[in-house]
């Protein structure tokens, strides 16, 4: 079995919320900070440990605030490094395909 083909998946709408909220927990429910700490980072560490890819499905919700995505993905890149994250991250967003570019920019720290 080729370990590089293993994938750790996240479906944001199913596993976290269909109505993602603001940047920080202090600003409201289902924040980017909460998503990063409770879902994204544990899955990232699991994927890294297993030498697997991390697949994040962004579809199925009611839309994302910029600050939610920046805090979740940009925040994870600030902790673990953009190269480590970009190397294993696969994103899916059929409903809002431009979000994929946006998230990659947040990871590279081009925008906050």
């Amino acid at each position, binding site marked *: 079995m080729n370990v590089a083909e293993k994938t750790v998946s996240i479906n944001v709408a199913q596993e976290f919320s269909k109505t*993602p909220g603001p940047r920080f927990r202090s600003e*409201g429910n289902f924040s980017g900070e909460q998503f990063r700490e409770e879902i994204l980072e544990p899955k990232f560490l699991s994927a890294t440990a297993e030498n697997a890819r991390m697949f994040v499905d962004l579809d199925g919700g009611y839309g994302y*605030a*910029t600050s939610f995505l920046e805090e979740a993905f940009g925040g994870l890149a600030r902790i673990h490094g953009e190269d480590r994250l970009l190397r294993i991250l696969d994103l899916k967003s059929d409903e*809002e*395909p*431009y979000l994929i570019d946006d998230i990659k920019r947040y990871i590279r720290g081009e925008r906050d």
Partner: protein
Amino acid sequence: MTEPVHVFGSFGWLELKITVGELALAISTLAAAYWITRFIQKRQANDEATRDLMIKLCEDALQELSALSGAMEDCSSDCKIEDAGRQRIRRHMQRFSNSVHTIEVAAAKATLNKLTHRITEVKDLRQTLHTQITDPLVTDPGLNPDQLRQIEGTVRQTREALITLQLAIIQQ
């Protein structure tokens, strides 16, 4: 060895003679000219079709931007937005963002590299608008008058950037 000479006729001082080699050269030149003309015409037709498509996509984006701006009007009185209003604004924001994404995809497929920096300008404004609109929508009470004024300014800049892109496409 002398090539056969065909004499087409003699008209006073003008005498028309052509060798087989000259005839073959003339035919091949005419054929090449015909195919080059057809190639250019086809390419011009393709360029025109691409230009028409890109202009149409810009018009679509301008329409979606107007619809988004209209949806923002609903919350300009007391700034408190109900859930249905928030969803409507998000939906219009999504449609506008997708229309900008379609312009980018079409330009890339048509390899319109000269438009890259104009499209990047529209994309950057789209992202600014996304931030200005979606961030306040996830916190209460919603948008305050200062934020609404900033959004209206960005809508105007985005509209101008789209029109500038249209003009660049026309002038290509």
